């Protein structure tokens, strides 16, 4: 493990690319990772079941 000099870019935090800030934010990722399957798999799936017609 190597020694690095104190980063000169500490004051440039605001220049971090948007995608990198997304990937550095575990809670935003947590929200996305739960919302996606909750909507597309669970909610949509339950709607499919609920709308199955009753047998004639």
């Amino acid at each position, binding site marked *: *493990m190597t020694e690095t000099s104190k*980063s000169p*870019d500490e004051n*440039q935090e605001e*220049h*971090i*690319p948007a*995608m*990198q800030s997304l*990937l550095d934010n575990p809670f935003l990722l947590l929200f996305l990772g739960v919302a996606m399957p909750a909507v597309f798999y669970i909610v949509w799936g339950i709607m499919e079941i609920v709308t*199955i*017609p*009753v*047998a*004639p």
Partner: protein
Amino acid sequence: MTSFMPPADRFWWKVPVGRQEIVWILIALTWCLIMFFMMPYWHIYGKQNLSNEAYQTTPAKFGAKVQEGIDQNKVGEEAGLPIIHPPAGSDVYMLARLWQWWPILELEKNKTYRLHLSSMDWQHGFSVQPININMQVVPGYEMVLTVTPDQAGEYGVVCNEYCGIGHHTMVGKIYVKE
């Protein structure tokens, strides 16, 4: 040694990606899209698809329809189970229960039938062997398969969803006549 250390570059997102990775990602993405489009393609051009036609039902309601089918189309018996020979193109009802597929079907080759399946009790698996067609049979739901047996012969209907101690004795029959 960096997989367990922070990236060397503070702005690692801006580090250019090597040509090898880009080429591989493009090849892999192409393959993924081909696989994706195969499913809609098969819905249009393929012959083995599910219509997903289904109804909410109850064991009593579905059982009555099965009995009606037996009353109208019964042609014989085998091992205590009725054999029915429904007219081509008609609605055919078959139920799953511990541990039977009821009744036995006699179908004609290359004729199309609307096969209705449901369970009277637990979940079962409708597995036609040796042709190897497999469906989930769920209590409370009536599934409709539009099926055209195109090979004559004797087929076993094996239950392939675990349904208790007698699971392995749950075998039904479908005869496909020339």
